[in-house]
C-alpha cells in the first residue's frame, strides 16, 4: 500500500508509491519509442468505456495509480513522523480519439472540451470530504516525465493533503491581501498590462506573461484578467478564449522552441473552505518548457538560476509567427 508521509522539519508531504516500487536496477532510463496508431494504448483504450466521456475526451483511472480511495483516509503518527496511506484519485484524460501527440495541434474546440473535462472532474472530486486539492496537469515529452507514446493526454490527481507549493502560494497571496486588501494576482495583472515588457499575448479574458522572477527558461503563466479563486467556476463563459490562448502559447513553444517537452499545471484554490480563498487567491496556469536540467544548487537550495531575462523571453515568444 502506498503512503503519504510528512517531513517533520519543513512539513512537506511526499507520496511513496509502492505500486511503482522499483529495485535499484530498475532505474535505467527506458528507451522510449513513439507508437503508431496500431500500437498506441490510448488509441485502443478509446473504444473501451472510461469513467467519464465528454466530446471526444475520455477519462480513465490510471493504469498505474499512485493514489487509491478504496479505504477511508486516516492519518497516523509514528513517533516524530506523520503518515497516511495514499488516499485519493489518479486519472488519465485522453484528450482526443485522434493519434495526435501535441495539444498545440488540436483544434481549439477540442482543447475547450479538455478544459471543460478538467472542470467537471474537479467539481466531482471536491464533493469528497477527504480531498484537499485537485490538480490537473500535463507532461508532454520525455524530458517532462512522459512516456513518448504520441497521443495527447493529461492527468488529474485528487489528494487528501495540501501540497507544499500550493500552500506557499496561498500563504503568499494571503499575506499580500492582509497588507493591501487587494488580490496579489490582480495587481500582477494590472502591472504587467501596464508595462507590457513581459506580456506575450492577451485576449479579452486572459493574458500570458513570463513571470518577473521566472525559475526556468520560458516559464510562462496564463492569468485570467478577471478575479476568481477557482478554475472550475472561474472559467465559466471564458472556455473559448482560454482554449484559444492555450493553443496560441503551445504553438509559440512548438514553432519557436523546436517542439520542446513541456509541463503545464492548473493552480487553483484548495477545495475545502472556498470562502477563505475567495478574495485573496486567483487561479492560473503555469506552463513550463523543459529545456534545462535542474542541478544540485537548485535542488539543494530551492534557488533557481534562469539563464535568460524574462523580458527577452517575452520578446522572443511575441515574435514567433504561429500562422506560418
Amino acid at each position: 500500500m502506498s503512503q503519504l508521509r510528512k517531513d517533520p522539519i519543513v512539513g512537506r508531504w511526499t507520496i511513496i508509491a509502492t505500486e511503482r516500487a522499483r529495485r535499484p536496477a530498475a532505474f535505467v532510463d527506458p528507451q522510449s519509442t513513439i507508437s503508431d496508431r496500431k500500437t498506441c494504448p490510448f488509441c485502443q483504450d478509446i473504444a473501451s468505456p472510461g469513467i467519464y466521456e465528454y466530446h471526444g475526451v475520455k477519462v480513465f483511472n490510471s493504469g498505474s495509480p499512485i493514489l487509491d480511495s478504496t479505504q477511508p483516509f486516516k492519518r497516523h503518527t509514528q513517533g516524530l513522523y506523520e503518515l497516511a496511506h495514499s488516499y485519493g484519485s489518479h486519472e488519465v484524460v485522453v484528450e482526443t480519439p485522434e493519434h495526435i501527440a501535441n495539444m498545440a495541434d488540436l483544434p481549439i474546440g477540442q482543447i475547450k472540451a479538455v478544459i471543460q473535462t478538467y472542470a467537471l472532474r474537479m467539481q466531482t472530486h471536491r464533493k469528497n470530504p477527504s480531498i484537499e486539492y485537485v490538480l490537473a496537469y500535463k507532461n508532454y515529452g520525455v524530458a517532462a516525465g512522459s512516456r513518448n507514446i504520441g497521443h495527447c493526454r493529461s492527468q488529474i490527481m485528487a489528494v487528501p493533503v495540501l501540497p507544499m507549493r500550493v500552500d506557499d502560494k496561498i500563504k503568499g497571496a494571503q499575506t499580500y491581501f492582509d497588507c493591501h486588501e487587494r488580490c496579489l494576482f490582480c495587481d500582477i495583472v494590472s502591472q504587467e498590462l501596464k508595462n507590457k515588457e513581459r506580456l506575450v499575448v492577451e485576449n479579452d479574458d486572459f493574458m500570458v506573461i513570463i513571470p518577473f522572477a521566472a525559475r526556468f527558461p520560458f516559464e510562462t503563466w496564463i492569468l485570467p484578467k478577471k478575479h476568481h479563486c477557482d478554475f472550475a467556476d472561474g472559467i465559466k463563459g471564458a472556455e473559448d478564449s482560454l482554449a484559444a490562448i492555450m493553443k496560441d502559447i503551445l504553438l509559440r513553444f512548438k514553432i519557436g522552441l523546436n517542439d520542446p517537452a513541456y509541463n503545464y499545471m492548473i493552480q487553483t484554490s484548495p477545495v475545502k473552505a472556498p470562502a477563505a480563498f475567495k478574495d485573496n487567491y486567483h487561479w492560473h496556469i503555469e506552463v513550463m518548457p523543459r529545456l534545462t536540467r535542474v542541478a544540485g544548487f537548485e535542488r539543494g537550495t530551492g534557488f533557481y538560476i534562469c539563464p535568460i531575462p524574462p523580458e527577452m523571453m517575452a520578446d522572443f515568444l511575441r515574435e514567433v509567427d504561429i500562422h506560418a
Partner: protein
Amino acid sequence: MPELRRDPVIGRWVIIDSGHTKGPLDFPKEDNTPTRQAVCPFCPGREYQTPQEVDAVRPGNSPANTSGWLVRTIPNKFPVLSSDGSLQKEGHEMYDQMTGIGAHEVLIENPDHDKTITDLTQDEMKAVLSQYQGRFRQLSKDSRFKYVVIFKNFGASAGATVEHTHSQIIALPMVPKTVLEELKGSEHYHQQHNRCVFCDMISQEYKDKERIVIENSSFLAFCPYAPRYAFETWIIPKGHIADFANTDEITQSHLAQILQDVLKRLKKALGNPSYNYYLHTAPIGYAHSERYHWHIEIIPKLTRSVGFEWGTGLHIVPTFPQDAARYLREAQSTN
C-alpha cells in the same frame, strides 16, 4: 550584471543570469553524457587557462597557479553571480530585485583527471573537506553574504558539464528558500519542544533502525522518512552542531570516511548513477544556533520530476526509504 529577483507570491528569490544569455535555441533538448575533453583546463599544467586561484592545498608549498596542488579552488569562469560591486536593493512597483552580488567558485577535488570522488584516498578526501571548510570561513567574512552553499553535480543528468572531479561553491546575499524552510521548521519545533528537531530525528532513526544505512563514531547516514527522491540519503553529525565550519579535524576525517562510503554504496547499488549532494548549514552569523543542525543531503538523479511535482511540491517517490536503506546496507562499499 546578473540580477536577483524575488517572486512576489511565495517569496522565492531567483538568479537571472543575463551575463551570458543564451539564445532560445541554444538549449539542448537532451543532454548527453560528457565526452572526454582532449584539453581539460582543470588538469595540472593548465593552471594558466583558469581564473587565478582563490585557495589551494599545496603539500609541497608550490607557488599559486602552478601545478603541485592537491585541491584547487578557482572563481567560476562563467559565474552566475558577480563578486564585484555593492549590494543594491530596489523595488519596481510590486516587484523586488537586487544586484546579483555573490561568489561562484569551482573546487577541483583532485589533480588526476581520471579519478572520481569515490576513487580518492581517505587523505585526498580529507583535503577536499578541509578546503570546503576553508572556503566557508573565508566567504563568511564578506559582509555582503548571508549564506554559502557547497554542492556537487555528478553526471550529465545531474547537471555536470565538466568531467574532471569538482564541487562548486556559491555565496549568496540571502538565505535560500529550502534552507529558510528548514530554519523556520526547526525554529517552530524548538518553540514547542525546546529540543532540536534534527537531534530528535536522529534518536528516532536509532529506535526504528530500518532507515539507517551506516554510521561511524561521528555521523549517521540514513534515508529520510519522507524523502523527495528515491534513494535520497542524509549524512548528519550525531552530536548537535549548527555550523559545518565549526567541525574539528577528527570529525572531518570521519565525514570523509562516511561520505565516500555512502557514495560508493550508491554507485554499486544503482549502477553509477548521476547524483547531487549539497551541504545544508546554519546561515552566516547563526553558528551557535540550538535549533539548526548541519547535514549533507545526497540525491541520486534517477527519475524525472513530472508536472505534478513541479506544480505542487508534492513529490512522488517510487521506493520506500527503508527499502532504499536496505539496498544500500547490502551494497558493499568497495569499488
